[in-house]
Every structure is written in C-alpha cells, then in structure tokens.
C-alpha cells in the first residue's frame, strides 16, 4: 500500500505543473491541457483520501470530476475553435477583446 503522503505529494506536484501551465503558457490548447492536469490532481486527492479512509464516496466524486473535466474540455475546445475562426489565433496574449 502506497503511503498517503506520496500520493498527496504527487497530487501537489501535478497541481503545481497545471498551475504553471495556466499562468505561464500562451497557447490556449496548452492552457486547456493544464486545466485538465489541475483537475486530475484534485481527482487524485479524492481517490487517495478515499482509499485511505475506506470511504467510497471519494471515488464516486472522482468519477463525477472526470465527467466534468470531459465536458469542460469539450466546451473549452469549442470556444477556442470559435476564437480561431474569428481572430485567426489562439495565442492568449493576443486574445484581448474581453475588456472594456
């Protein structure tokens, strides 16, 4: 049985990688992928605590999280596709029209 600390450290590492991707990368697709990593980090936390405490509701919540992530990816990709069609780019520092 893998100790809980390792699982939490892995989850934290994944979260930091995702956070870095969101904040630092310019490409919209990569940002979406980073969000997936963030979500997976939290799902890993749910699973870890579920197996640690023997409470299965964490695993149920993990399945819900995967479904949400899939929906989020679909919506996000559709948004970026639409942005690309109208502006010809998905570089986030060039997509500046969401302001006054």
């Amino acid at each position, binding site marked *: 049985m893998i100790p809980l600390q390792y699982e939490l450290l892995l989850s934290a590492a994944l979260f930091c990688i995702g*956070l870095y991707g*969101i*904040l630092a990368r310019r490409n919209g697709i990569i940002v979406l992928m980073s969000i997936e990593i963030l979500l997976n980090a939290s799902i890993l936390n749910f699973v870890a605590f579920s197996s640690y405490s023997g409470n299965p509701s964490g695993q149920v919540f993990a399945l819900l999280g995967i479904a949400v992530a899939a929906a989020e990816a679909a919506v996000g990709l559709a948004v970026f596709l639409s942005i690309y069609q109208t502006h010809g780019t998905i570089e*986030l520092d060039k*997509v*500046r*029209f*969401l*302001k006054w």
Partner: protein
Amino acid sequence: MIANAWVVWLILLLPLGAFLVVGLIGRRFREGGGYLVVGAMAGSLVLSLYVFVQVLLQGALGGSFTETVTGYVWLPSIGGAEIRISILIDNLSSLMLVLVSFLCLLIFVYSLAYMHEDEGKARYYAEVSLFATGMLGTVSADNFLQLLIFWEIMGLCSYLLIGFWYHKPEAAAAAKKAFLVTRVGDVLFLVAVLIIWIEFGDLRFDVIAKGVGLLSPHLLTLIPLLLFGGAVGKSAQFPLHAWLPDAMEGPTTVSALIHAATMVKAGVYLTARSFIFLVPLAPGVEPPFTAILVIAGIGGFTALFAATMAVVNTDIKRVLAFSTISQLAYMFLGLGAGAYVMATQASRGEEVNSAGYSAALYHLFNHAFFKALLFLSAGSVIHAVNTNDMREMGGLSKAMPTTSKVMLFGSLALAGIVPFSGFFSKGEILSVTFDAGADHPGFYLLFAFGIVTAFLTAFYAFRLWFMTFHGEYRGHEHPHESPRVMTTPLMILAGFALVSGLLAYPMQGFGNLVFFGRPEAGFPLVGIPWSHYLLEGTALGVAVLGIALAWSIYATKRIPAERFTATRGGAFLHRMLARRYWIDDVYDAFGRNVVVGLARGLDWFDRNVIDGIVNAVGRGGMRVAVQSDVFDRRVIDGAVNAVSLETIRTSWRLRQRQTGQVQSYAWVIVVGLVVLFFLMFGQRLVERFLGGP
C-alpha cells in the same frame, strides 16, 4: 297713503327695462326699438299721473304730502344709518315725475321721425331711455347718495348723447368738454354728500331737515354752497356754463330733452332740495345768509351774462342754449331771493312766505315746456334746411306754417308776454327779488339785472324768430313742413306754453304743488300788493320793447344792424360777446397750458423718477442675478463637475487593470487565494513551525 305704492318702482323700471332691451337687441326692432321706448315712457307717464293725482287728492291742495316708498337695503349700516334705495313721493317729486315723463314721451315720439334716417338710432333710443331713468330717479330720490347716483347716470347719458355723432370731431370734443366741466361741479356735490354723511350719519332728506340745527354755522354755509357747486355744473351757471352751448353738437332732440327741459333742471331741483339747509325751520338757528347771497348773486349775474351772449349768436341752437342758461339763472335768482326772504322771516320768528321757492319751480315747470317747444321747433327747421345758421334761413313761415306758429308761441312764452306761461313765473321771480331788496339792498341790483335780462330775452327770442321765419329765404334747400309725428308734439307743447302758466289757478296757486314750509296763500296775480302789478308791468313793458327793437332791426330793417358795430366800442362789444367774453378761450388755454403742462411734468416725473427707480431696482436685480449665476456656475457646478470628473478619472485608471488577458486575471485569482490562505491559516502555520507562545 298712496294706494298701490309699488307702482312707483315701475316708473323707474320701465325705462330702465327699455334701455336694457333696446341696448342689447334694439337693432332687431322696427325703428331701432323706438316704439318700445315710447311705450315704456307712456307707461311711466300713466303711472306718474296716477301717483300725482293721488298726491293731489290726499293733501297737496293746501298742504303737504310726504311718503317714502321704502326699498331694499343697498348698503348696510357702516358707521351710520343703513342706506336704502327708496322713493320719495311728495308734492315736488310727484310733480317732477309727471313733468319729466311727459316731456320725455313727447320728445321720444318726435324722435321717431327726427332720427328716422340715422344709422345708430338703436343706440340713441337706448341712451335716451337710460337718461329718462336717471332723471326720474334723480327727482324721486329720498336721500342725497341716491340722488347723486342718478345724477351721474344723467351726466353719463349727456356725455354719450352729445357725442352721439362721435365721428364729428366737434361733437366728440363737445362731449368731452361737457363731461369734464360738469365733473368739477359733481366733485363738489360728492364732497357735500360726504360731509353730510360725516355730520349726520344719514343721508335722507327728512332726517337731515330735523337735525340741521346741530350743525356748526360754518358747515351750514359750506354744505349748501358745495351742493350749489354741483348745481352750477349741471345747470351750466357761471363759471361752469361753457359746456352747454357746445353741447348743441348732439341731436336736437337731445338738446331739447337733456340740455333744456330736464337734466339741466336737476341743478335747480337740487338747490330746491337744499332749502332744508338754507332755510332751517328749527327755531334759533341762524340761516346761512352768505350761501343764499352767493346763489342769488350767481343766478342774477348769469342771467344777464348769458342773455348778452345770446344776442349776437347766429346758430339757432346756440341762441337757445344761451337762453337756457339765462332762464336757469332766473330760477336760481328766484330760489336765492326766496330763500333770503324766508330765512329773514324765519330768523325773526315770523310766518315764512315761500313765494320765491315756488316762483322758481314754477318757472322751471313753464320753462321745461316752452324751451322743449323752442328746441323741437328749431329741430324741425334744421331738419328742413340742413343748417344751424340763421343767416341761411329766413322766410320759412310760408314753407313751414305750423312750425313757425308753434315757435312763435314758444318765443312769446320765453319773452314773457301775457298770457303765455313765461310771464307769470318770470314776473313772480322778479317780484320776489324786488321784495328781498327790502332785506338786503344787493337784491335791487339783481332785480335790475333781471329786468335788463327780460329785455334782452325778448329781443333775442324775436331776433331768432324774425331771422328764421320772416323775410326772404337765404339758403339753397327746398324747405318743407315736417311730418305729422313731429308737428303733433310741437302743437301739444305749444298748448302747454300757452296754458302751463294758468294751470296754477285750478291748483289754487303753484306753491301748493311744490310745497315747502308753510302753505303759500293764493293765486298768482290775485291778492298781491299793487307794487307787484307795477313790477310785472315793468317786466312786460321791457319785453315788449325788446320785441319792438327786434322787429325794427330784423323784420322791417328800419334800424340797420350794422349801426351797432359801426363804432369801435360797438365792434369790440360784438367781438367780445361773439367770443363769449373769451371765457372759453381762457378755459382752453388753461386746459392746454396748465393742465397739459402739469400732465407733462407728471409724465416727466413718471418717466425719469419713478421709471428711474424701477429701472435701478431692475438693474440691481440683474447684477445680483449675474453674481449668483457666476457662483452657480463656478462653485456649485464646479463641485458637481469635480466629483464627476474624479469619478471618471478613477474609473479610467481602474479600467487599465481590465486588460482582457485571461492569464492576468488568473494571476490575480491565484495571488488572492494565497493571500486568503495565509490570512486564514497563517497564524497556525507560524505557531506550528516557529513555536508559539
């Protein structure tokens, strides 16, 4: 008691109603409502006669009759008695009601033909009807205020009717002149009424007559003089006589009705009513002899003064106007002399003899008939020859036989030839004046004035008649007799000119009809001292002389008229009389220079001082407004603008933070979370890792 006393209201209300109806919708009637007005006046006459006969039967013969028909309260008590609109029925007023309504009726009938071709006849009939209301109201008022009100209604109608042909500048000017000149007298009258109100707290004649003894001697002199001032204006006595000759610009019927037969008599009537002041019947009161002398003096002077001006005038109506002034002055002379005799007798405690009072009103009565006759005859002549100028008349007795005969009757009555009416009343006035001379020698002078006036009166009356009807026609028209509807009233009036003087006989003396004080004994010319026959014979003699002179100058031309103006003195006299002693010129100059100058001065004051103050206030206001505008713009608006500007600036700065960059927002979220985390758990972390207290 008068049976059916309410009918006296109808005497006033019938012409008033006719005025309202004709004034509003007169144009829709035939003859502009003339028949309606005549009908209303006939109703008034019948009712007046009804009242008059009752007064006669119930004590007027040989005594007095007085009854007040109480009307509604017009002004409730204001520091005195309440003022009611009431009608006084006594010997004098019932006689005046009959006289006025009778003359009005005849003249209205005459007007049906005379005004037939006039465009504005509806206006004419409305105005004369209102005038009739005013005159009837004046002679039947039971207090001074009511009398003043109706008096002013007459003044208004006089103004309107003189200016009836208002498109003629002379008529408009004459109307204005009449209104302004009579106004001088009206103001004096108003002052008298106010003084009476202050002194008595009541304006009714009977109440005042009882309280006259309480007046101070000064007021007892002042009040009748002020009342006489009103009479001087209305009756055109010197010095307010100037308006009456010019009033002849109105239609001749108006001249006959208002400026000869009725309205100008109101002054005499008022003076007769003011006998309650002149001859206080309360014992121990000193009568106001000064006031009486003023009245008699102005009367005697004006009689001569106006007669001289009539002698040279060539306008047929103006001759009659001057004659009216002169005859009215006779009445004032009679009233003054009679009052002096009565006042002397009363102060001595003797029986008073109201001969002068009744002689003056007798003359009023007779003069109303013969002067209306003369004016209407003149109107008939003017109607035929289309001019007022006697130099363009002459020889009209062939073309107008009826008019010439009735005018001869009027002239004989005016001249005072027995048995025409003027003889009796004029003779009595002169006798009374002579009698008063025994109490005050000044009356002998006034008597002399009266005799000279009688001579001049006969002269100008027949000068008028000969110039108009005798000799050859000098004009260019084709004169013809007037229609029946005009000549019938003339013939009726001619009958009265002949017999109205004799009417006193069946009444057992005219004094009974106008009763004042104690009964006056007897018949005219009967039971009087022999000296009076001499006096009346003198008056008759000078009148015959005057007629003879007129005959030899204007009919046979044995004495050429030019001879009188041949010498320098004669020419000057003629010019002075023709210019009416320059009094009109003086009044005009006074009006033009003094009044207009005063008005100019006031205008200057108004423009420069009053307007200056107003403008300065306005300018000051504007300056304050400008300052307040600046304050408003700079301070108030500045504060508002500064707040909004700062808001805009702040929001602009904040807007710079909205980059639209998703990742910068994400940074904010993350940093915010970290800060939040440390705020929530920071303390515990510090305790855990660094060791707490």
